């Protein structure tokens, strides 16, 4: 015979476990579709196809592809053709929270991180936009190998110098 256990909680004896129960990532009521797809891609480091994602999530491949393209534009994932099929792979993982910061330049937010790349750490610079109605959105990102950052900085300085020269030439012509 089984008896029903009295599980009524009392304030005085509440514990963290009472409040948390069996919390998993999937308990979030507001998980976005893109968030779920990103998680699935991240859990398949060897690649996953649109068909597999569509079967798993029980939505059409067309819907999945649209979300994948959005994630690709944000540089969260990338695709590769292998034997006539396209597979989707996760981009780098943030190495440590210390290696992430945000900066605003004239109101435009940017996220700077160092992530694990296939052949070493990668610097990611992500451009974002913000609006009162929609909050923050990712507009795009670039990746540079950490070892090439100095070269990139030199290239940007070079570009800036060229622009100054260009402007001076225009002034002279005037």
């Amino acid at each position, binding site marked *: 015979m089984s008896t029903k256990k009295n*599980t*009524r*909680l*009392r*304030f*005085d004896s*509440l*514990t*963290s476990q*009472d*409040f*948390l*129960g069996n*919390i998993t*990532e999937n*308990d*979030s*009521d*507001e*998980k*976005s579709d*893109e*968030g779920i797809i*990103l998680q699935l891609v991240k859990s398949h480091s060897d690649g996953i196809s649109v068909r597999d994602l569509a079967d798993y999530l029980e939505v059409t491949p067309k819907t999945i592809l649209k979300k994948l393209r959005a994630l690709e534009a944000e540089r969260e994932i990338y695709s590769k053709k292998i034997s006539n099929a396209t597979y989707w792979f996760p981009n780098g993982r943030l190495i440590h929270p210390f290696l*992430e*910061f*945000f*900066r*605003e330049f004239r*109101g435009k*937010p940017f*996220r700077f991180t160092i992530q694990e790349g296939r052949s070493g750490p990668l610097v990611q610079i992500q451009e*974002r936009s*913000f609006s*009162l109605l929609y*909050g*923050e959105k*990712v507009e795009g990102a670039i990746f540079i190998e950490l070892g090439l950052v100095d070269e990139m900085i030199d290239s940007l300085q070079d570009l800036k110098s060229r622009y100054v020269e260009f402007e001076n030439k225009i002034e002279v012509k005037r």
Partner: protein
Amino acid sequence: MIQTLNIRELIGHSILGTAGFSNRFPAVEIGKCAPLIRTGEDLEGIARCNFLDSNCPVEFNILNRSAIVNALKRVQTAYPSHKDIWLDPTSIITRRPSIGYVPPECLLKSTEKATIALNHTGRIGEKMSELRLDNPDGAFWAKVASEKLLVPYTRELLSCMRIFNGDLLAPTVPIITPKLKTSPKIQGVVNRALASQWPLSSGGRFTTTGILYSLHVDPSALTDVELIKNSLIELSQSLSGDLSFWGIHIHFINISLVSRKAARIKAAKELIRQVSRIGRQHGIFTWISDVGPIGPTLLDEGAAFCSYYTGITPRPIYLEGMNSSDPNIIYGKVMGLWEYDLFDINDIQTRGWSLEDTGLMARGVPHSLRFGKHKDYRVNFGKPRNIAVMERLNIERIKELNKKNIKPGTSHLGRSSDPSIAPWAAT
């Protein structure tokens, strides 16, 4: 553990240095009174204050998110015509460090209006409001636990904060009260439970909001030595582990109830001193929420920041049965600077419609506001004036500390004859 507090100098219990709020900004100078945005009207008042330090953090009431957003939209429309004296709307909340909180008065059953306000965050907030209305204090939290609402509710709060890019959340926790002798322990349990799950997803993938340790105390608990001792023990225990609290958020539910009794004032100051000390030991800052004009004296006890309602009068947010015809109430109060008292509209009229110069905005009430609509007066003069006074006090504080005056805030409050302010200087 995160280190958010960097102390340059200790002068008495007062601290000079910087505090970090998020990865979005460099650290900001501490030892300031900061504006609290309770309602949309507070935001409209702040919008008229282009003298507000761009690095000064703000605190906002998450429950009034919609009203605040609507106010922001109005301000955005009007801003181009007032660029010389208004703040850029995007810099009122989103481009400065900010803390989001739920007014603890909404967890009491003191007014139905306050409890119903919990509805405003969404589906889980509605459930919380319903449970709160139907259950006494202890049973309410037991139900929150048994129905596993704590984490979904906190996610809902984070989701509401996203539109403002809120940097830090003061989570909703049981209030320390003599009615529940184990309330300090359970407050600690809830803080630790949430921090152990951080960062919490709020649906978006870009949640960067940090968590504060909420130390919310009913004024009646202040003179219960055992309760206060246990709350400090819980705080120390929570900060000593691996959990990442960015700071400590103290709230006294209704500061005017603390002001009524000397014993409570003394106990509140001692509590802040001890909490700030514990926070310093763990490298995190202490934020005292919604204390109005007495903030400067609490900074003397080691707090890094105090927030003030821009209407300045110390009172709860969700009041019922207010007399809305008395001009002394509906026009609100305005702060003096050196004569550190609260002036109603009749007082200001007696003074020829002019107050002491703050050096930050015009000292006189414009003609168009003197006998006009009360909201226009509050938004265009009263609230900006209060912000100007507090900003000026922030500037004066640094000067006094540099002269090694260890209690500049208390000295200033000594100039007041107001019964809600003066006792804080005397105790």
